[in-house]
């Protein structure tokens, strides 16, 4: 494309007072004919000025040197015209103060360092504008808009209903013989409407009727997924009878080994020919096509592991006892509660099933249970509840305590021993109503143990209760408030035919829940187009599941429509760009395939990446990973950023160091803008380039900067690790790994490792930024100027 650049410099918001505008304009090379300034560029007159040039002069690339790209983007939107923003306001004049106060009587003095900064930014902006192209969306030929809902419980059926009501076809796949899930096995439901006090009849039957009657919903039972191939809009899903073997089953993945080079490969996948189903690339001609998937596979009850230790193991564990770490990792014991040993000790799930069938009876002799103790915590000095316990577990205990009162005589008793009673929001009313029942007795307490009396009656002992230090109660039954384990924890229910394996990665970070970030991105999994709802996302009650299902259904619809328009769905919603690979130079190193946080890339037998653009989130991690630098986006690529780095003028004077900051545009760059907005300031020797994600930072930019004489490079991105805040899950962590390797390379060039550093920051930590930059500048001063300066 032939570019015709127009440069527009704004003088408002303090820019004119701090900078020598004439000098700045002179930095625009003469080949660019159009260079104008305006007192207030964002005013209608200012915008008209640009529009006239677009219409009259044929300007198709506009460089606006004014405020940050994060503001007024809607004002400076000229349709297909490329818009490059040079951040003079937040990035230069607001965040930097002149070194010397102007002498009296003199007008405002232009600070040399600040002026140089503005000039550099202008040069960088021009360099980038020369090298970027307007994006064109990637469109699949045909898109299927049908939604597959995996799981036929309340969440699944509700999701299907919500999708259907919005006009989308939905197919519910249920593994079991009938839909309804656990909700169909309940006696009553905890209340969801005013006054939130009485148990209500389960809604599931009504929901099943509605879903079965809806013309846009198809329900299939006794079916499960053999494999999911493809991408959003074009998922090719092979279904099979539940429990049956299929030629299209995804082979068991090899255990992922930490630090291993290759991603987990199913055995035999490499040898297989393209039409052998063992190959994940093999296409099943009979597969059904769907646009997006809602994962509503729910939960299974938690159960304590068998504790029968074999003698050999016992010896081993005795040896291990000395080593604190091993002892710590040992699963806590639940033996003292008697589950599995005393017949009248049951889980809340077993009690619910019994209550749905009829009255609550002691399993040992079938006598009515006149007194039942509900145990909500492991006890024996521990503050912990059972694994996967939640507010649902608390609510269920209260509900089942009411069953005991319903079934028994007037003096039937239900005890609840808890460490945490979680009844959030309006459910507090339900807690109150249970508490006010004469026969329901609640206390915080540390359960010591449950023992049998021989006649089936149980004695429960507890310490540190509200009633005193040590108490005992004699009861007919003990019910353990065990939690809800997401099915995804132990089963690869989706069976992706993806190179990165059949399940979700890093599930351990979230205890098996497939969320990619529970707080920031509800419903999003690490696989684009798969949205998780209900108890597979977190333990929740029936009503919450219904609301959750609506959210996931809307995400699925958004995904399908985004794929249809060829734009990114999340988190860069609406981004039309997509990674473009220059395959001739690919060395099949598979780094992009391996590093993509979302498994967007598969690869062929040789290892050449096979992109799936609708799976892509446009973070650019592949671009950052590629050692051959063959990956790029229309408006964001190795060359566009590299040329910005090269456009920085590096003076030879020692008192004018130069530091390059690569700042993640999600958190770090807004935080840097905020530094200016809040009137704080940082060193004028830094030059900031925003990047999509630190994962997209290619080490070549760092090498370019260092060989140019830049004294140091600071990358600022989101927090990573267990509580990561990276918008692309792994980006900042991947750069950290790459940086480790850079350290070695620097040494070989006789450059100090300290010159390249990475900092993690959250968006609200803008106040820390000046300190971070100062500290880095001090480090650079200590190690001295880059010896490559001037070469």
């Amino acid at each position, binding site marked *: 494309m032939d570019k015709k650049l127009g440069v527009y410099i704004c003088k408002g918001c303090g820019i004119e007072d701090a900078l020598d505008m004439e000098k700045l304009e002179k930095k625009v090379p003469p080949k660019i004919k159009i260079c104008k300034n305006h007192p207030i560029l964002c005013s209608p007159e200012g915008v008209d000025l640009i529009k006239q040039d677009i219409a009259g002069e044929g300007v198709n690339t506009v460089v606006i040197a004014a405020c940050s790209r994060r503001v007024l983007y809607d004002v400076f939107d000229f349709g297909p015209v490329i818009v490059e923003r040079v951040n003079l306001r937040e990035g230069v004049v607001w965040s930097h103060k002149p070194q010397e106060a102007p002498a009296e009587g003199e007008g405002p003095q232009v600070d040399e360092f600040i002026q140089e900064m503005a000039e550099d930014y202008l040069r960088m902006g021009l360099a980038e504008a020369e090298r970027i192209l307007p994006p064109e969306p990637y469109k699949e030929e045909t898109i299927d808009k049908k939604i597959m809902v995996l799981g036929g419980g309340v969440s699944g059926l509700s999701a299907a209903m919500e999708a259907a009501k919005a006009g989308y076809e939905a197919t519910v796949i249920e593994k079991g013989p009938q839909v309804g899930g656990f909700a169909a096995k309940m006696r009553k439901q905890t209340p969801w409407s005013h006054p939130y006090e009485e148990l209500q009849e389960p809604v599931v039957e009504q929901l099943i009727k509605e879903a079965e009657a809806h013309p846009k919903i198809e329900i299939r039972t006794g079916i499960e997924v053999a494999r999911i191939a493809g991408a959003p809009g074009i998922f090719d899903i092979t279904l099979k009878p539940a429990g049956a073997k299929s030629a299209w089953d995804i082979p068991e993945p090899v255990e992922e080994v930490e630090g291993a080079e290759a991603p987990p490969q199913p055995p035999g996948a490499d040898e297989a020919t393209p039409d052998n189903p063992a190959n994940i690339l093999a296409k099943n001609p009979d597969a059904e096509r769907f646009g997006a998937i809602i994962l509503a596979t729910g939960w299974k009850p938690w159960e304590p592991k068998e504790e029968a230790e074999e003698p050999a193991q016992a010896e081993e564990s005795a040896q291990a006892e000395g080593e604190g770490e091993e002892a710590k990792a040992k699963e806590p014991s639940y033996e003292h509660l008697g589950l599995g040993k005393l017949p009248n000790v049951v889980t809340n799930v077993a009690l619910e099933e019994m209550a749905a069938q009829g009255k609550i009876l002691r399993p040992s002799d079938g006598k009515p249970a006149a007194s039942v103790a509900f145990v909500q915590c492991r006890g024996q000095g521990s503050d912990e509840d059972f694994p996967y316990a939640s507010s649902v577990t608390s609510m269920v205990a209260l509900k089942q305590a009411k069953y005991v009162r319903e079934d028994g005589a007037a003096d039937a008793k239900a005890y609840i021993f808890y460490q945490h009673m979680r009844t959030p929001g309006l459910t507090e009313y339900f807690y109150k109503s249970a508490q006010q029942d004469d026969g329901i007795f609640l206390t915080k307490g540390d359960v010591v143990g449950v023992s049998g009396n021989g006649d089936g009656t149980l004695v429960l002992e507890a310490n540190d209760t509200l009633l005193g230090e*040590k108490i005992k109660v004699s009861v007919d039954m003990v019910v353990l408030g065990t939690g809800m384990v997401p099915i995804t924890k132990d089963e690869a229910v989706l069976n992706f035919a993806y190179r990165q394996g059949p399940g979700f990665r890093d599930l351990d970070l979230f205890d098996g829940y497939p969320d990619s970030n529970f707080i920031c991105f509800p419903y999003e999994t690490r696989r684009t187009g798969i949205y998780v709802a209900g108890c597979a996302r977190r333990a929740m009650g029936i009503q919450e599941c219904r609301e959750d299902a609506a959210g996931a259904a809307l995400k699925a619809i958004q995904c399908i429509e985004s794929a249809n328009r060829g734009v990114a769905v999340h988190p860069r919603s609406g981004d039309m760009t997509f990674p473009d690979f220059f395959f001739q130079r690919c060395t099949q190193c598979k780094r992009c395939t391996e590093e993509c946080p979302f498994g967007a890339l598969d690869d062929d037998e040789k290892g050449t990446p096979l992109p799936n653009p609708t799976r892509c989130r446009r973070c650019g991690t592949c671009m950052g990973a590629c050692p051959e630098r063959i990956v790029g986006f229309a408006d964001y690529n190795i060359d566009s950023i590299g040329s910005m780095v090269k456009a920085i003028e590096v003076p030879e004077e020692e008192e004018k160091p130069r530091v390059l900051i690569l700042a993640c545009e999600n958190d770090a760059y807004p935080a840097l803008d905020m530094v200016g907005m809040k009137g704080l300031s940082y060193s004028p020797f830094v030059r900031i380039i925003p990047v999509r994600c630190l994962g997209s930072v290619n080490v070549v930019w760092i090498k370019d900067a260092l060989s140019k004489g830049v004294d140091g490079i600071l990358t600022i991105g989101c927090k990573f690790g267990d509580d990561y805040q990276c918008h692309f899950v792994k980006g900042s962590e991947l750069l950290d790994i790459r940086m480790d390797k850079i350290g070695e390379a620097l040494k070989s060039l006789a450059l100090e490792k300290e010159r390249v550093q990475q900092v993690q920051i959250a968006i609200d930590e803008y106040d820390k930024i000046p300190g971070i930059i100062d500290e880095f500048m001090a480090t650079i001063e200590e190690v001295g100027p880059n010896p490559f300066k001037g070469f």
Partner: protein
Amino acid sequence: MADSYLVEPDVKFVKQLKAMGGDTLKKCYQCATCSVVCPISPEERPFPRKEMIAAQWGLKDKLVGNMDVWLCHQCNDCSTYCPRGARPGDVLNAVRGMSITEYAWPSWLGRIVQDWRFFWLLLAIPVAFFLVLLGATGYLKIPDGEIEFAKFFPTLLVDIVFVPLATLWLPVTFGIGLSRFISAIHKNAVAEGKAKRKDVNVPDFLKSLVCTVPTVLGHSKFSQCTANKDRYVPHLLVFYSFIGLFVVTNAFFVALYILQVPGPYAQWNPFKILANVSAIALLVGVIMMIRNRIGNKDNASKTSYFDWYLLLLVLGLVLTGGLSELTRLAHLTTVAYPIYFAHLVFVFCLFAYLPYSKLAHLVYRTVAMAYSRYAGREPCE
């Protein structure tokens, strides 16, 4: 550490407490705001938090023999600050009612005095008894001439009824109840670690009783209440007027049998003045109490039959007593004698049912306060 305690909740007891005015007890969620705001609760093992959980769990044995429920003066500062509306002050009042019934002898009488269904029966007992007594002795008629109550209900007959009531019935029934009560609170206090001493020493206990008297006379605990300050003055009035009337009654007894001076006495007689002043104070006090209870104030104590019974009895007592005197002075013969009859009925009820009614708190609370000082839970002032 104490052995573990087998908790056996009594659902029926929970229901009884609720019926006695503690209907809010299940609302408590054990935040202990009550124990913190209570101006008179001791710092160690303060009430009423622990009493509330015991009440919720229906643990009768932890409540009825608990001296702490008697240290509470039902200020209702706790109820005012309770975030859940559990009204601990009223719950403890209900527990006290249960405690009175628990230790009453004979226990069936204790139960019926606190049961509204027996109200008329209890009133009918003295009515019938007096009618039979007067009928048998031939006095059952309105006498002629100057009104002299002794002509209608001879003093001897009065004393045949009331002297044994006061000197035999009350000491025996109350004595049995109290001895049960004291051994229960001692056992409970030792078991719960509230008593600093575990021995039983009668002289020391009597010393504690003596040191409790100024507290009772000065209402110094009562005066620490903030939410229900209004209850202080009427209670003080009622308390002192009862003392006044007690003094007067004894004085007239001495006048009649030792000095051989029969009534009625002149209005300027100092004892007569004391009687009249006490009567007026009692009337004012009891009316103020009733007003406090029926006025719909947020922090007003809840009023159950247990409270109404005593209030109505005292009101009846003072009204019939005062009207007897006024109608006598106004020579309203046909009215004066029946009113006097009614007055004697109320006096009978007061004495005969004292160990079973709320009025028993006069003794139980004093003893509990004395025990608390004896056991070192509270200091002697």
